[in-house]
């Protein structure tokens, strides 16, 4: 199995560290270029099982604005994003919704919650 060198740009924070990973036999042999442990963790995950925090808006009835912005409580597998979005596009919430409210618990039995990131006041 040949040794592969992959270059990643860390997306954990806006510093954008350029991290190099050396892979051989599907195993990470070396990681360099990260400024913090989060960068090392990110690249490890990005190589083995890429994840993203999903953000979107849900429709909300009877509120001051017609939507509530939401995020997943944890990053989810990248390939699951569109499936979850498809489901969320059909959800309609009812005002009031407060910032931090769990609007959907344990979506698709994944252990991940959908959390409101913007309040929607009842009008």
């Amino acid at each position: 199995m040949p040794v592969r060198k992959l270059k990643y740009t860390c997306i954990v924070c806006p510093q954008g560290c350029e991290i190099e990973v050396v892979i051989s036999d599907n195993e990470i042999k070396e990681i360099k270029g990260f400024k913090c442990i989060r960068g090392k963790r990110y690249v490890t995950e990005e190589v083995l099982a890429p994840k993203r925090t999903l953000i979107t808006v849900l429709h909300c009835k009877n509120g001051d604005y017609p939507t509530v912005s939401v995020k997943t409580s944890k990053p989810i597998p990248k390939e699951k994003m569109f499936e979850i979005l498809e489901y969320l596009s059909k959800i309609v919430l009812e005002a009031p919704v407060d910032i931090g409210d769990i609007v959907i618990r344990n979506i698709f039995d994944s252990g991940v919650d959908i959390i409101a990131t913007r309040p929607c006041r009842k009008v």
Partner: protein
Amino acid sequence: MKHKYDTIVIGGGPAGLASAIKATKLGLKTLIIEKTERLGGIPLQCIHEGFGVIYFKQNLTGPEFSYKLIKEVDRLSIDYITSGYVSEINILSDEAKQVKVISPKGYQVFETKTLIYAAGAREKTLHEINVVGDRVSGIFTAGEAQALMDIYGVMPGREVVIIGSGDVGLILTRRLILEKAKVKAVIEAMPYPGGLVRNIVQCLKDFDVPLLLGHVVKEIRGRKRVEKVVVEKVDENLKPLGESFSITCDTVIISAGLLPHVRMLRELGVKMDPLTRGPIVNDFFETSIRGVFVAGNALIVNDLVDYVVEQGENAAEGAYSLITKKYVRQQNIPVLFDDNIRFVVPQRITKTSDVVFYLRVKRPMKDVKIIFEEIDKVFVFSKARPSEMIRVKIKKKDLGDIKDKLHVRLYSDASPQT
């Protein structure tokens, strides 16, 4: 609500909220005037993460970031007016300013010792980037498209071309794709991307969106709705190379950058910096008019909200120092810089406190050394890009050797020492 204040903050976004919070904590009677119907500013429509990593040590979404500040405003019972239109500002003296406001509460006249102007930035429009063609529906600025989608829940279009690769455009691209629109291309005139690298990765590369560097949109064509754009290849000086092609699309979104929104300051006669397009300020972000301070994107277009908050707090400290006579602005030392630097803010220093300098380079460079000549301060960076503002802090005690000027020099491998 009293009609006399120590400081009036114009703008209820991150810069305004942060300055109001800081001013209140310093004991100043503070009023915030916000033009929209709620406090929070533009981050309310920026529903992605990446806010507050430095300031709150947390990776927050835009609305979460703003609401952390709003909660603090509520806790401190700071006065504010929403849907407030500032119709007039009068400079009565160094220590007194008058602000006239029209809002649902009617017409009110306030008097204040100091003003903190935090009205943010505005987006460049089609007219500023030389795009010609049909004026049809389906043309938006990035901010408009973002508000439509993420506040009002309406899709701006289905097949989109984005003009400009700044962060706003990149982040919007991802949002459009997640909401099942197709982004046909992101078109950037410069030979390098305008946004942060992390956004190129997670917004374009994640979804295989083509990024056309060194290209411009020449024309927009359509009858009632946008039907196509004509794209042309350009060289580094934006000169057309005579190679053009069409991309079919129903929507064009312009993300050509922001400019400080300074109309009101200009009307007051505040001196402007042609490089930042914002006002010329000293290290307290005080403008050429005494007692008028500025912070956030009205000062310089920032790429991190954390810096915006820092600027808001600094302006509040400036207002406090002026009111309590803690500093007397006798020194007004100009900051000069090499021509491989696009700008340095503040443009003047008073030598009365620590100074945070913000600067941008003109083009991407490696192994950069920034030298503050008169005081022999050196800062080293492995890379510098125009899209990533550089921030350095110099302590008051190290400013001692500066006399009539401070010269900022920049050396790098990519730009020989001339």
